[in-house]
């Protein structure tokens, strides 16, 4: 069943259709939130919030909008609200002490890599991080990201470019870099 079919049934009041949508989209939304906020537990909590807001906003969804864009917009707002709330609280994110959950199968080098990327993403501005995550991980087009963020596509491209450069710089600062080859 397509998204449109499920959405149509959902808007007609069929609760199970929304459950099906949630099953389909929850992993992707949770992954996106995890990258935005840097914490798996928080991401899981926030994903519940995203789908609650989506359910409550049934009447605002219009078929002419892609469902994924609409859902990611809700998720992006939830993530940004969470980040702003963290900044207001005394305990800010200390990017130098980002802890990662390790599994027995993760070796030290992998742990450093994961910590480096998470710190790098955390060092980006909200808008830059959003542009990078949506383009790289979720593979949305710049036009779709522009619709989600309600900014021109050219602005999104600019944010994405600066995010990638800043991330590269941060990784290099942490010693995670490719050595330049000499001809």
């Amino acid at each position, binding site marked *: 069943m397509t998204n449109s079919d499920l959405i149509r049934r959902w808007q007609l009041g069929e609760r199970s259709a929304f459950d099906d949508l949630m099953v389909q989209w*929850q992993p992707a939304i949770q992954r996106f939130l995890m990258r935005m906020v840097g914490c798996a537990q928080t991401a899981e909590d926030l994903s519940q919030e995203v789908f609650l807001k989506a359910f409550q906003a049934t009447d605002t969804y219009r078929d002419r909008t892609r469902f994924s864009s609409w859902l990611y917009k809700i998720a992006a707002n939830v993530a940004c609200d969470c980040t702003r709330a963290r900044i207001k609280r005394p305990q800010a994110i200390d990017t130098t002490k980002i802890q990662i959950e390790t599994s027995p199968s993760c070796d030290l080098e992998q742990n450093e*890599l994961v910590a480096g990327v998470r710190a790098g993403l955390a060092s980006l501005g909200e808008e830059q991080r959003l542009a990078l995550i949506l383009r790289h991980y979720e593979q949305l087009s710049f036009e779709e990201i522009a619709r989600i963020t309600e900014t021109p596509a050219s602005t999104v491209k600019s944010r994405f470019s600066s995010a990638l450069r800043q991330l590269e710089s941060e990784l290099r600062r942490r010693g995670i870099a*490719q050595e330049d080859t000499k001809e």
Partner: protein
Amino acid sequence: MTDKNKKPDLLQCDEVGELLPLYLYDEVSSDEHRRVDDHIGSCESCRQDLDRLEFTRSTLDQVAEIEMPDTRDSVSLPVDRRSSSVGRKRRSPSWGKIFASVSAVLLLSFAVLGVELQISPEAVTLRWGHARSPVSSEFNAKTTQDKRVVDADAFESEFATIRDELVLTRKLVHALAANVDTDRTTSRNLYQLIARRLNTLETGVRRNDFRLNSTPANKLAAR
């Protein structure tokens, strides 16, 4: 060189630097792509800049794999290295001729379907259920004991078509692994058949032609 003598088509390093992130993600026009290509073909500094950005991109993917490893089903079969039989000349594998590819490892990736076919001199591997595909998200929901688990029967009926097709394709992969080292014609035919089937599946999933329709009342498993 004065400005009026500078060829207008050539980009300067700072201009290339601004374009490189978008160039890396294929988000530049064909004209910009050509001009960047021309520049980095003769500019070591910009080429290394591109390499660093490419490394960053691959690091993001690598970390994603560590954090959320693929729970992909796969079948990987060693290439059947048959010993020469009497009177039959054993052909050594010639990947370039068999698959019209110059690479030692042939990789076909079907992003929407979530299937990957990899052929190397050592093994033929078919993976399905990529983390980002709609098919895999359902598999993940089932395998990770998500809070809401679709009723097993409804789940099975929804993906029966795709699963049957993949099972059949897996058999073809078995045949390919058995023949790829010795029978060039059969290998090529099998490879083309597999690629065609996977392309059809990819298109079907993209268009939702398979009507992934559950029974009228999807029951949620009781917690």
